[in-house]
């Protein structure tokens, strides 16, 4: 037992290795939120009038709303006037090539293991790198453009493809959807935009890397992916932040639109700074992610590995509107120390013969609280809808908690909805078996947890699967209760 206590301490003291700060000059907005700040952000980005109007409307909507209290989370009051809503690394006005990026910034991304040099990339992954409020570089743009794929920062898209933005922004996550989506709509600073034209299969993984650098800022990015008829795209998202004692707010919105016969795969490895072992600091991660299967036979698949953030509030959802459309959600959420996670999904079946699958694996250790909250709704006209949900929780120690809140609402008799959940700890017999084969307890736990999460990790693109496995190992090695 003392051995395992030592191991537990080992893991709790393990360092967050992305906690460094890059010393770069930043162009910042003053603290606080007002209509002027919204105008300031819009002006900074040189936005057209309709965008400013949209933002102001969102801001006014937000003022009328109040913080949601229903989640199983303890959130300290957030002072929205103490946050800087815009912070951009200072750099030359326009970049002619990627070589002109500030060397400091380049070094930051090298340190994070993200190379911005196209020629250095071995695997075909196009990256949009977002630091604080703005996108600093997007790689492989030219190559993608040949296929008609648009992959650029949101600000650029607003300038260059206003017709697409006008058509799709806020169409999946309406401004007034919730408190944080309204806030995001008012002050979002950048993000990625991705458009796959009809019949195109995107030849490489598209990826956005989010980095919070400046202190006292919030990050509010917005991602929009549109897949036209018959197209396919796989998109990855990664994130890290420096270690700081105060909590920083990250409120993002992600919208996916899948037309007929298209397929969008969206993977996230979320590794925001989780706070120290006393629960001090860390990112508040309040994210609204939603996709809509507009056309028949379309498919949206969410995969997420959540290891970071002090508080996670996130429910990637799919609206299955087209007939025969498919929604998937695969999630591993790990909480340790004083982290809190309330995460899950919503599958709204509207079309006929729609299918959805939910696999959620929660792992809680330390003093953390880990909740799964999900909704499966079968509307009256959604004939032959099919859902299977599985949510498992693994507990390590008796100071943490695992919670499940699945809502299942069925209004159609032809639906077939199944839900199952289990909560348990790692079996002593499993550990014993490994020990007896000469493995240390620590290795055994890593092996078992990896096996436990395999179903989800297998869904990740290869580049991310490796990172995710390492993350899991770092977060949990040795935490045997």
């Amino acid at each position, binding site marked *: 037992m003392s051995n395992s206590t030592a191991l537990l301490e080992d893991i709790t003291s393990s360092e967050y290795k992305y906690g460094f700060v890059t010393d770069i000059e930043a162009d910042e907005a003053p603290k606080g939120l007002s209509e002027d700040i919204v105008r300031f952000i819009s002006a900074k980005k040189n936005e057209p009038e309709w965008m400013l109007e949209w933002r102001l409307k969102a801001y006014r909507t937000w003022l009328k709303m109040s913080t949601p209290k229903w989640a199983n989370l303890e959130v300290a009051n957030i002072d929205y006037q103490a946050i800087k809503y815009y912070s951009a690394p200072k750099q030359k006005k326009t970049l002619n090539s990627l070589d002109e990026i500030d060397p400091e910034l380049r070094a930051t991304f090298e340190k994070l293991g993200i190379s911005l040099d196209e020629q250095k990339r071995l695997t075909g992954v196009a990256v949009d790198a977002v630091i604080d409020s703005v996108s600093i570089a997007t790689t492989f743009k030219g190559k993608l453009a040949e296929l008609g794929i648009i992959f650029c920062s949101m600000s650029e898209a607003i300038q260059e493809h206003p017709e697409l933005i006008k058509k799709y922004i806020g169409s999946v996550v309406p401004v007034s959807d919730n408190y944080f989506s309204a806030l995001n709509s008012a002050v979002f600073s950048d993000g990625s935009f991705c458009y796959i034209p009809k019949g195109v299969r995107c030849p490489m993984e598209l990826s956005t890397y989010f980095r919070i650098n400046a202190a006292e800022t919030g990050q509010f990015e917005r991602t929009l992916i549109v897949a036209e008829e018959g197209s396919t795209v796989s998109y990855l998202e990664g994130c890290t932040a420096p270690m700081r004692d105060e909590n920083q707010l990250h409120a993002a919105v992600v919208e996916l639109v899948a037309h007929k016969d298209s397929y969008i795969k969206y993977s996230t490895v979320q590794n925001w700074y989780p706070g120290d072992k006393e629960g001090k600091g860390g990112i508040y991660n309040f994210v609204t992610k939603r996709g809509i299967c507009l056309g028949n036979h379309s498919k949206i698949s969410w995969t997420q590995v959540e290891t970071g953030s002090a508080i996670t509030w996130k429910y990637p959802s799919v609206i299955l509107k087209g007939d025969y459309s498919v929604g998937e959600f695969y999630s591993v959420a790990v909480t340790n120390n004083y982290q809190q996670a309330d995460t899950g999904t919503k599958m709204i079946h509207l079309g006929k013969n729609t299918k959805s699958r939910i696999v959620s694996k929660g792992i809680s250790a330390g003093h953390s609280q880990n909740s799964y909250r999900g909704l499966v709704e079968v509307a009256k006209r959604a004939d032959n809808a099919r859902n299977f949900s599985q949510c498992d929780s693994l*507990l390590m120690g008796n100071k943490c908690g*695992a919670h*499940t809140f699945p809502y299942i609402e*069925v209004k159609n008799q032809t639906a077939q909805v199944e*839900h199952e*959940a289990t909560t*348990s*700890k790692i079996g002593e017999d499993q550990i014993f078996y490994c020990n007896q084969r000469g493995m240390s307890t620590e290795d055994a736990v890593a092996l078992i947890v990896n096996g436990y999460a395999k179903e989800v990790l297998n869904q990740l693109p290869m580049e991310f699967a490796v990172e995710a496995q390492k993350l899991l190992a770092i977060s949990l090695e040795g935490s045997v*209760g």
Partner: protein
Amino acid sequence: MTEKLANPISEAVIANFHAFEQSLGADTVAIHHHTRKEALNHFLRLGVPTTKNEEWRYTNIAPSLKGKFDFAKTSKSSNLDPEFLTSTLFEGIEANIIVLVNGKYLPYSSTVLSPIHEVEILALDRAIEKRSAILDTYYTKVAPYNNNALNALNTAFAEQGAFIYVPEGKEVELPIFIHHIADGTSDSTICHPRNLIVLGKNAKVTIVETYSSLGENSVFTNALSEVVVSEGAHLEYVKMQAEKGNATQVNFTQINHAGNSTSNTTTITVGGKLVRNNLHIAVDGEFAEANLNGLYWLNADRLVDNHTLVDHIQPNSQSNELYKGIVSDKGTAVFNGKIFVKAEAQKTNAFQSNRNILLSPDGTVNTKPQLEIFADDVRCTHGCTTGAMDNEPMFYLRSRGLDENTARAMLLHAFAQEVVEKINHDSIKQFIARQIDSLLGFENE
């Protein structure tokens, strides 16, 4: 929305409360006046729950409570024929029978056969005089009224109900029936029956509560049962709800377990326009075991809402939960099963299963299992399914020459029977099975 709906009800409640207290007579008022007053204040503070309240998300109770009821008249005696009340229903069953009409005890319809040393069965107001020590220990202490508006309302207006006390080591041979009748023949009625059931150490008893209603006027039953299962005791507890389509019922049952005790609770709902059952079980003792079974059948535009909560507080305890539902026409079934496992409750085994069959295109099933686990060395699982009837067994029966209706009736009967089989008392099991079969029309198929 809360304000609009709550206010007329609150006003009616306040207006009637004073008159009600007067009608109770001096003694009773003196004893429980303080509690009633406090409960009334809690009710006014909490207000009638709306669908904005997470616990009442799918069930809107307010329309059933609106204005029609005279809260003061809960004690009016019914002029029903006592023979008629029990003769048909309990024919051929040897049992203790307590009859409560609109929450009021009818001595001439009730029969107590078990000897007094085995079990003490009294009307609650008699128990207040005779058994004040037990009352003081448990009454309103088992089921708190400060966080639940309807419990508070019951506590404020509760007048009568059954008091059952089984002393240490006694095994009650005959089952005890508590037969509730909500009488709406002459007027709309709201009633607040209240039971206190106390099992001493190693005691054993079988209790069946049956609910029915009469008349065409709307009736509202807000029942509350407090149950104490002491160390090593066993409780077999059945609720059979078969009210008419104009009846609303809210039923709260709190069962507190001590170590090594077991309970087997079966809740069967086949009637009532709107029925909300709250079954809370505190497994507060090592090696205690709680079994909860439920069966609900919905037709027309009826709604049945089962909320269960199993709270594992001590280590090494066990709970098994099985709730099954059949939904036809425009019926709505709601299920919320909470399982809490506290940090100290290591080695808990908790199982929960909720299965629903949707027979019609207009039916709705809203189900929400909920596990909240704070201990690591536990095994907790829950599963739930919702769907149409399985085609394969149907095909099998049809291929053997059975017509569709017969085959369907057989399969539904089998589906329901799984819950009935959980009752550990033969004659009660048969009594319940007969009731269900006649109500659901299986018998002649």
